[in-house]
């Protein structure tokens, strides 16, 4: 386990990039390089990072970066992995780095295919819960009740649980993360790097521009997402589910903050009614009952994928 002091000083996301102030995804990208180093090939579809990296002839990313079509991150990673194997360069880590729209909506087919083929790469979904780069339109990862430009009165459907969808592919490693807990994310990346096969990490990446909160509050927003239980930090290693700190202390409902503490700080949830808040709280509590079952069945069951 890496500590803050042990994080490398090298920066591979360079200064002068084009992210918004307080951008959760760009904090995550910086951490990604600190965890994986620079022997990395990054695949980026259409997403905020298309802009963050900067315009030709400049780039703010100091590893080889392949920009690719919106729905095809995992397909591109498959091609790179295959070519690296033919060239005996398998010590290079291939990383797909895509937003939530590019993952849970338009990119899910290619991702599912690559996972089923046991492609040896790390796929990271940085989830700011809407199509951020095009100005906040609803995605399959937008949560219930959230304002977006295409759900002006709030989305009426629930967020897709992409991490568990990926777990259903029986890949060796699935994890969730949040840049508010940088060491948790870094250590998960380091673990993923050592595992052969498809590794999927889903980051909740707060977005001040789209979520409508002050850009100084990104870390706080991520922490509240975790502490209210709306976003659980967990990993599923060879089918075994495990909650990570601080989520592992939140199985007891009384330890979780009410969801209102998180939702009320964001302009995108301005239109939530009292019954919406109750509904969201109920769903979170149900999710945690499920996490509780997964935790106990994973502890008692030694067979991989016994329960997931």
């Amino acid at each position, binding site marked *: 386990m890496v500590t803050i002091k042990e994080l490398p000083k090298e920066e591979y996301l360079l200064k002068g990039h084009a992210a918004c102030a307080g951008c959760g995804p760009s904090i995550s990208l910086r951490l990604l390089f600190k965890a994986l180093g620079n022997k990395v*090939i990054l695949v980026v579809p259409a997403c905020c990072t298309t802009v963050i990296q900067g*315009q030709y002839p400049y780039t703010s990313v100091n590893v080889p*970066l392949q920009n690719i*079509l919106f729905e095809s991150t995992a397909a591109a990673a498959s091609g790179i992995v*295959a070519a690296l194997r033919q060239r005996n360069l398998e010590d290079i880590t291939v990383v797909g780095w895509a937003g939530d729209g590019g993952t849970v909506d338009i990119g899910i*087919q*290619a991702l599912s295919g690559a996972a089923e083929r046991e492609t040896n790469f790390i796929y990271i979904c940085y989830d700011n819960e809407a199509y951020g780069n095009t100005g906040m339109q609803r995605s399959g990862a937008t949560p219930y009740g959230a304002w977006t430009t295409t759900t002006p009165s709030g989305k009426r459907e629930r967020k897709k649980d992409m991490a568990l969808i990926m777990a259903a592919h029986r890949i060796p490693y699935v994890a969730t993360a949040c840049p508010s807990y940088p060491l948790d994310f870094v250590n998960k990346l380091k673990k993923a790097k050592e595992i052969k096969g498809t590794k999927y990490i889903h980051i909740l990446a707060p977005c001040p521009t789209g979520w409508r909160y002050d850009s100084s509050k990104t870390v706080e927003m991520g922490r509240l997402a975790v502490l209210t239980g709306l976003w659980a930090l967990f990993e599923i290693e060879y089918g075994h589910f495990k909650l990570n700190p601080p989520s592992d202390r939140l199985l007891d409902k009384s330890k979780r903050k009410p969801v209102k503490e998180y939702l009320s700080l964001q302009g995108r949830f301005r239109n939530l009614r009292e019954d919406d808040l109750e509904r969201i709280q109920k769903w979170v509590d149900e999710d945690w009952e499920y996490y509780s079952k997964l935790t106990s069945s994973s502890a008692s069951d030694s067979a991989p994928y016994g329960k997931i």
Partner: protein
Amino acid sequence: MAQVLIDTANHIAGYAAKAARVKVVAAYPITPQTTIVEKIAEFVESGEMSAEYIRVESEHSAMVACIAAAATGVRTFTATSAHGLALMHEALHWASGSRLPIVMAVVNRAMGAPWSIWPDFSDSLSQRDTGWIQFYCADNQEVFDTIIQAYRLCEDEGVFLPAMICLEGFILSHTYMPVKIPDQKEIDDFLPPYRTGWILDVNNPLSHANLVSPEWYMEFRYMIQEAMENAKRLIPKIDEEYGERFGFGHGGLVEKYLCEDADLILFTMGTMGSEAKIAVDNLRKEGLKVGTARIRVYRPFPVEEIVKLAKQAQMFAAIDRHISFGMEGFLATEIKASVLNQKDPPPVAGFLAGLGGRDVTYATIEKIAKKAFRWMREGEVEKETEWVDLRG
């Protein structure tokens, strides 16, 4: 020793990918292409071919995986047809825009709706403007030879563009013909190891295909056009060299047959070119001065060759196996465009034939030629576009 195989064009395409020492194949099945990627799967599993075979979940992913593998420094191959090619459309632009020398076999099949599995050129000609070089083959030998030639062409530093090798479904794809396969060593001498203009390299970290402002986008497009012009100069040279080494040339950009003294020249593509030669022989016996020119390379379009033919012929007829709805056959349009600025260009009559796999035999082509001759003598093209053998 060269080997003679009697096999289908699809299997021959697989042999060509093997002979080209392709390192990554990403493919998805679709009729009538499937037996190409089945053949390659056999080669890879038996160890005859040392390559990665990515069994992707769609044609879109097949093309993207080829793009990414080509960008990672290895030779790539894929094959598709019709709807598979249409699904790739977006990625075709990405491949040429990225200047990656991917080679793909396109087994021509008509586009639906309604479903059809039989050949015409509506699939590949719909991809005309994607920046891919397009070859159209007339027989199985040409399929093998053109795949090898295409790698040599596409990996030339003056080109660095992808190419599709088009062959008509069933007419070639599932038809057995004898094909001469040169020795591997001879092919290796002709085709050097993979070359590309750039590569994803951890020792030289660059962002590829990132956002380009209006300040530079046009220049990137101009460079693709330059590469196409370079390809136009190189294709005849490569075909000639190949012919000298292996005994088969295919006419470079345009395969011409008895055009020198012809009053009427019939323009065709693909297998219609073979039928047209028989038609020309028969018509010559009747004393009609006719020749045929098979457009082997549709992109880059061989404008200069057509201009040369325009200087010697009195009449052109273009036989198209595809229509641009609301206009006419592509070949007719492009031949007209090629000669428009010439002094007294010959009139161009357009004929649509063989859509959705309807047979176009030498007899069909003789009928077309006779009509064109009549219009030539009357001094008037009666119909801008004639639908040949249309029912009802």
